[in-house]
C-alpha cells in the first residue's frame, strides 16, 4: 500500500523552504556570492557566518555537556538525554560545515585547512577543532547506528574508545567554543565597546554552556511535539538548575568586565548598539534567570520551555550582535541580509530538523542503553 503523506501546514512550509533553498543554492554556486547575498567589501561577514557558523556551533554545545555529565561525571540519570544530545551536536556541526560550504568563496578548497597550516590564526584553530570534534561526534553517534544495524563487533570497538573520545571531545569543545570569541579579539578598534572585551573567549564559552543546556531542553520539547518522544521533566529541571548557576556566573563576570573597562555607563546610552546590547542581555540572561529562580516555573513544562526559548533567542542575538551589529558603526556601511541569505539559512536549519526526525525514527536514539543496568536484562517477546 502506497502511503501518500498527509498535507499539513508544516509540510507545505517545508516544501516551500526546500524549493526556495534549492533555487538559491543553484544561484549561489553558478553566479557567486554577490548574486545571493548583500555582502559587500565593507561587510564581508553576514548572516551565513554569524548565524549558520558562529551561532550554529554554540547551539550544538549540548552534545559535549551531556557527554561530560554522563561519561566523565558518570551521572547516570542523564543517560536518556545522551543520545538525543549527541545526535543534535553531530547534526549541528554537520550543518555548520554545510553553512561553511555556502559561505566560503572557494568552498571546494575547504580541505586546504588540513594541509596549509597557520597556527597563529584563531580561525585555523577553530577549523581544526570543529573538524576533529565532528569526527568525535560521528564516532560517539556511530554506536547508535551500529546498534540499530546490529553490528556488534564495531559497537564493542567504539565502546572501548568512548571515554578517551569523550574527554577529547570536551577539550575540543572548550577550545573552539571559546575561540569563536577569540575571533573577535582581532578587531579592538572596530567592535563596539560593550561587546569588545579581552574576556570575549570566556563569555563565548560560558554562554555556549548556558545555551547548550537550553537547547537540550528545547529539543526535548520539539521531539515530544513532532515525534511523540520526550525526556523526563525532572532531568530537564536538573539542567535548568545548573543553568541558573551558569547564568549568574555569566552575568556577574559580564558586569565585572564592563565596570573594569569603565564602560558600564554605556549600557544606559541611547545608541543603537547599546539598546541592542540591553535587549540581548535581558533576553539571554536576565529574564530566563528570573523565570528559573521561581520554583513554580522551574518545575513546570511551560516554564522550562519558555525560559529555554529565551536563552536560545538571546544567545543568537548576542552572536549576531557581536559579528554584525557591533562593527556596523566602524564599517561605515549598513547590512541587512538578502532574502536569498535568509532562505538558505532557514533551508539549512530545516534540513537539520528533517535529518533529526529521520534518524530518531530509524535508529534507537531515544532508548536508554541497556548494558549498564543493574537489573537483569529481561527477555522480551514481541508478539
Amino acid at each position, binding site marked *: 500500500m502506497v502511503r501518500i503523506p498527509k498535507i499539513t501546514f508544516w509540510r507545505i512550509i517545508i516544501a516551500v523552504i526546500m524549493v526556495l533553498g534549492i533555487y538559491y543554492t543553484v544561484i549561489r554556486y*553558478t*553566479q*557567486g*556570492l*554577490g*548574486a545571493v*547575498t548583500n*555582502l*559587500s*567589501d*565593507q561587510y*564581508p*561577514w553576514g548572516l551565513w*557566518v554569524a548565524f549558520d557558523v558562529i551561532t550554529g556551533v554554540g547551539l550544538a554545545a549540548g552534545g559535549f555537556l551531556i557527554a561530560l555529565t554522563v*561519561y*566523565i*561525571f*558518570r551521572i547516570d540519570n542523564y543517560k536518556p538525554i545522551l543520545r538525543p544530545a549527541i545526535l543534535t551536536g553531530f547534526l549541528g556541526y554537520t550543518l555548520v560545515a554545510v553553512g561553511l560550504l555556502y*559561505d*566560503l*568563496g*572557494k*568552498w571546494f*578548497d*575547504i580541505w*586546504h*585547512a588540513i594541509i*596549509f*597550516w*597557520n*597556527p*597563529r*590564526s*584563531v*580561525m*585555523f*584553530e*577553530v*577549523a581544526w577543532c570543529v573538524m576533529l570534534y565532528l569526527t568525535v561526534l560521528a564516532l560517539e553517534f556511530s554506536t547508535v547506528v551500529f546498534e540499530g544495524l546490529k553490528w556488534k563487533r564495531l559497537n564493542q570497538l567504539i565502546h572501548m574508545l568512548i*571515554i578517551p573520545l569523550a*574527554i577529547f571531545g570536551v*577539550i575540543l569543545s572548550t*577550545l573552539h567554543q*571559546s*575561540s569563536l570569541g*577569540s*575571533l573577535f*579579539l*582581532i*578587531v*579592538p*578598534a*572596530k567592535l563596539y565597546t560593550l561587546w569588545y572585551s*579581552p574576556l570575549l*573567549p570566556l563569555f563565548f564559552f560560558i554562554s555556549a554552556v548556558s545555551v547548550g543546556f537550553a537547547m537540550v531542553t528545547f529539543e526535548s520539547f520539539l521531539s515530544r511535539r513532532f515525534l511523540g518522544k520526550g525526556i523526563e521533566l525532572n532531568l530537564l529541571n536538573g539542567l535548568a538548575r545548573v543553568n541558573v548557576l551558569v547564568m549568574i556566573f555569566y552575568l556577574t563576570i559580564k558586569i565585572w568586565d564592563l565596570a573594569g573597562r569603565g564602560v558600564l555607563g554605556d549600557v544606559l546610552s541611547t545608541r543603537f548598539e547599546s539598546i541592542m546590547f540591553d535587549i540581548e542581555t535581558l533576553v539571554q540572561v536576565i529574564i530566563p534567570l528570573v523565570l528559573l529562580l521561581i520554583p513554580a516555573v522551574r518545575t513546570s513544562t511551560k516554564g522550562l520551555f519558555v525560559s529555554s526559548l529565551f536563552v536560545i533567542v538571546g544567545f543568537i542575538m548576542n552572536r549576531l550582535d557581536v559579528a554584525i551589529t557591533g*562593527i556596523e558603526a*566602524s*564599517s*561605515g556601511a549598513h547590512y541587512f541580509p538578502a532574502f536569498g541569505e535568509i532562505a538558505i539559512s532557514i533551508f539549512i536549519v530545516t534540513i537539520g530538523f528533517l535529518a533529526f526526525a529521520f534518524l530518531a525514527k530509524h535508529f534507537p536514539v531515544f532508548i536508554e542503553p541497556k548494558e549498564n543496568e*543493574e537489573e537483569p536484562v529481561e527477555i522480551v517477546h514481541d508478539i
Partner: protein
Amino acid sequence: MAKMGILIDITKCIGCKACEKACKMRNDQPLTLDEHLSANAYTVVQERLPNTYVRRMCMHCENPTCVSVCPVGAFTKTAAGPVVYDKYKCIGCRYCMYSCPFSVPKYQWNKVVPYVQKCYMCADRIEEGSEPACTAACPTGASIFGERDKLIEEAQKRIKDNPDRYVDHIYGLHEVGGTSILYISNVEFEQFKAPFNIALPDKPLPMYTWAALEKVPTIVVVGGVVLTGIWWITSRRGEVEKFEAGSKQEHWWRFGKKQEGVKEKKEDKQ
C-alpha cells in the same frame, strides 16, 4: 634586503590619479575611475577634504593582521616589506577582510571562483630592484619609495623643517605596530575619517588573539589531566559501589537465613 616602504605626503598630492592609472595598467584592470578601493582598484586617490587628496592603498603592516588571521596562511609578509597573497591557498573565508584595521582586502563578489584582491606593493618589481608602479608614476613626489628607515628620517625632517605646514604625526610609524606605508599631512588625520579616525593601538593586533591562542596547549594538557582524573575518581566510585552492593547481597543471604531462624523460633513459641 632592507625593509622598503612608501611615504605619502598628503600636502604634495594634487589628485591627478596617475598612480591609479599606473596601478591598473600594471595589473590589467579595467581603466575606470574608482571612488573606493575595490577588487579592481588597489589604490585610489580620494578628495577627503576640499583640495586635500588622500591616497588609499594597503598599509603593508609590519606585523600584519591578515597574515595572522588567515587560517591557511595565504598571506605572507616578505622580507622586503610587501604583504603578498597566495590565491591558490585562499579558501575564501574573508576573515582578513573582516579583521583588517584599514579595511583593505577586497573581494570578487560576483565571480564563481572569487579571490581576495589588494595591493601587493608590486613585490615582483621590488624584487627586480625597481619600485612600485604607483610611486614611479607620481609626478609630484607625493608618493616616494625607499627604505622604510630612511623614509621615516625624511618624514621627520620634513615635519621639523616645516612645523607650520605639517602636523606632528607620521601615520603608520606606530599604528598597529607600524606599517610600511607612512603618511604625513597638514591636517589632523582624524579629519580624513575612516580608517584614519579610528583610534588604533600601537600594539600589533595579532598580539590580541595570540594572548588567547597561547593558552591552547595549557588548556589541552590541564583539561586532559583534570577530565581523566575526574573520570578515574567517578569510575572508581562506581566500582566501589558495585563491590559493596555485591557484599551486601552476600549479607542478605546470611541475613535471610537468620530471619528464617527467627521465624521458626516465633512459630515454636506459638
